[in-house]
């Protein structure tokens, strides 16, 4: 019976090809546009590491008052990190910055090339759950001993080592020889928590270098620096490291809430201690900030993305009204047909059921078309705008959502005509 009704529904839809073609196109395009914009917004506004909301914090230090600017709160200075890093409370610490380094192979078989690098402490990998293909991160001891070890991403591994397990292999960074200890798998994290200031939607850096090597190798910051006055010195790099300039996003993770509270006390003490030597002005805003407020503070979600979602929703509304008009027209045109069914003994309920089957069939067709347009839309976004690559994709929930939204739109658009048509008075139309 159901199959018969579906065939009947398809036949009825085919009877008005212009209207049905338009209905399917309109719903497919408008739902497609909505899902494209929504999925981008959805992935941009995602909160990674949400399960660590009570134990993972960004360290905010309020040091630079010279030129009023909020940006200085987003990063810490090198000397503050050095002062804070030996505390035992955090189980993981991630102080890192973006750099650009020259990568070369030992045997000279390839041209050297520059690549984005992240200079970071060992805690970054476990704190942000870096996926490893081979090997793993370096440990605290290796970092303390200034060992030249490196983690590379899978693209660099493909380029330098043909994709094989390269743990233990050597490569040149600048003039120094490094040993590969880990190869990262594809690492999608949106937004990229460890550096929201510089690379919230960036690709995984090509190489990761231990933070302890900063002074030895003079690794310079390629990200944002809030500059402060430097002391006169023969060694400008050292003067920079010792200055009040802030440039390092700094995260700490604790085993428990209690540890976090103890750390807060420690931080208050540190600020007081520094105030005694003339740093950190009174009334300053130094504290631990949890993930969500930190994301909000960095305004990583571009407000135009929300605007586009709203616009797409209005677009869908107009299309739905349009569709409603066309479906009503189609339905009203079938009063005579319905009257014949009624005269032949069909109940009102059967008429409603018939039309519901019809609209469900229509909804499924629209839904599938909408999934296709959504995927096309996202491909288009990816092809045109490289920096959306991390956020432009559909997951299962969004995929199902697309179909459900299409069916609901069809149902709503058809509600009025169905009710109206089932009330048809056969006598009037059968004369």
């Amino acid at each position: 019976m159901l199959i018969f009704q579906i065939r009947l529904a398809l036949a009825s839809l085919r009877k008005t090809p212009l209207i049905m073609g338009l209905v399917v196109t309109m719903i497919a395009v408008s739902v497609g546009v909505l899902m494209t914009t929504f999925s981008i917004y959805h992935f941009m506004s995602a909160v990674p590491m949400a399960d660590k909301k009570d134990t993972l914090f960004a360290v905010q230090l309020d040091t630079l008052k010279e030129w009023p600017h909020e940006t200085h709160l987003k990063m810490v200075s090198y000397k503050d990190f050095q002062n804070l890093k030996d505390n035992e409370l955090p189980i993981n610490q991630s102080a890192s910055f973006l750099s650009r380094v020259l990568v070369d192979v030992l045997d000279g078989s390839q041209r050297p090339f520059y690549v984005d690098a992240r200079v970071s402490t060992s805690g970054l990998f476990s704190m942000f759950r870096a996926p490893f293909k081979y090997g793993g991160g370096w440990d605290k001891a290796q970092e303390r001993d200034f060992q030249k070890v490196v983690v590379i991403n899978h693209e660099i591994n493909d380029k330098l080592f043909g994709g094989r397990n390269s743990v233990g292999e050597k490569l040149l960074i600048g003039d120094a020889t490094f040993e590969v200890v880990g190869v990262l798998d594809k690492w999608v994290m949106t937004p990229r928590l460890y550096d929201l200031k510089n690379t919230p939607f960036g690709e995984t850096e090509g190489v990761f270098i231990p933070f302890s090597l900063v002074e030895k190798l003079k690794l310079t910051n390629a990200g944002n620096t809030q500059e402060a006055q430097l002391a006169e010195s023969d060694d400008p790099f050292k003067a920079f490291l010792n200055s009040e300039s802030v440039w390092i996003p700094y995260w700490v993770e604790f085993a428990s809430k209690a540890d976090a509270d103890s750390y807060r006390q420690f931080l208050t003490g540190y600020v007081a201690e520094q105030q005694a030597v003339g740093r950190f002005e009174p009334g300053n805003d130094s504290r631990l900030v949890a993930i969500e407020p930190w994301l909000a503070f960095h305004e990583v979600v571009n407000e135009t993305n929300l605007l586009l979602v709203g616009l797409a929703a209005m677009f869908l509304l107009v299309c739905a009204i349009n569709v409603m008009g066309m479906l009503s027209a189609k339905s009203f045109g079938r009063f005579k047909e319905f009257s014949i069914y009624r005269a032949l003994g069909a109940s009102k309920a059967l008429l409603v059921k018939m039309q519901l089957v019809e609209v469900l069939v229509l909804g499924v067709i629209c839904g599938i078309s909408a999934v296709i347009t959504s995927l096309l839309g996202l491909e288009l976004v990816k092809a045109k705008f490289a920096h959306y690559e991390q956020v432009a994709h559909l997951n299962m929930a969004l995929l199902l959502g697309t179909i459900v939204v299409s069916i609901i739109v069809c149902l709503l658009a058809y509600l009025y005509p169905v009710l109206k048509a089932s009330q048809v008075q056969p006598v009037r139309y059968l004369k």
Partner: protein
Amino acid sequence: MLDIRLVLSAIRYSKAAVFLVIVQIALTFAIVSNVTSISAQLWQKMSRPTGMAVFSNIAIESVAIESNFNAKNAIAEDLAMIRSTPGVESASVLSEIPLGASAMVPVFRSESEKYGTIDARGYVYLADQYAVDTLGINVIAGRNFNAEEIQEFERVSFRGAHGVNPVLVTEQWGKMLFPDGDALGQSFRTSMGMVKIIGIIEVMQGAWADWEGFDRVALFPGILLGNRVEYLVRTEANRRDALIGELDQKLYGLNDRRVITSIKGQDEFLDSQYQNHSALLTSLMVVGLILMTFAVLGIYALTKFNISRQTRGIGIKRALGATKGMIVSYYLFENMVIATVGLLVGLSLVTSLNQYLVTNYDIATIDWVYVPLVAAFYVVTGLIAVYFPAVKAANAPAVEAIRAS
């Protein structure tokens, strides 16, 4: 025949359908008007003059591999080679490429009895005496740097200079610091040392298109010595693309122990500056166009369907002496009435939607120029959408039309 009462009584028989059409027109009108206005504002923002000859310029970034690199000699060698290459008109070494995303952003602080203290941030680029020609900027008052004024600094340690440094500033920045337009010749403190304004640049853009200070730019006389060097090369416009490949090879030929990390037209930086804007503009235009198309197609489909149901009525009217023209004009008139009501309702929606956008997003108030344009476009396309089905119906022979059910 063109009586409003006739239309009204016809409408009474299909209230729901007409209501839907009116709501649809009103919403479409509100959305498309706002979208058009936002797109136009985006377009205006994107087409602000850069002040520079970006389409004739090549930007080159070269990074030396060796750590004991003699930057001074290498820069002189590179520039000599570049300048002697046929097709090159001028070449300069700069601290960063203007329109690229990085630049120094010091505070300039003018202190005078007349204006009090005025702080204004802007972009500063270190440049040599050839930069004005290479960039293609206009110095509208004062003078360019001369060779003696160009100092050398280490890139890693440069935070400013001692003494009073001559600078060129854009008229825009000059006016912020000295509102009466008497910036030329003034000396004042900045977060990178004392400066004196020796020349005024007509227009020049800096590093972040979204920042209000995008056109607050100054040139500071100097060359930064370091492994990373930024060259800007002015070429004969039609030879630029060929020169990009040629210079790339020649630079490697001169010194192999370097990496040319980037060599491209300066206009490509402009494209990256406006990548988000152009994404938004494209999305808005696509959605707006599809919306308009759908609205018109919807009217077309509805009219076609409705008229096909009224074939019999039309036949009777024709038999009673109505001309084809009268039938067609009736439907056109009916459409006009409905469209007008829809547009009037839409007008209030245009304003409220715009107010919502202005309060919640960083969007300027609607430019009313586009509203009547959108309305006119809507009316005309709506009439066209009605015209064809109406003509088709009117052309059917009356006898057959009456027999139709």
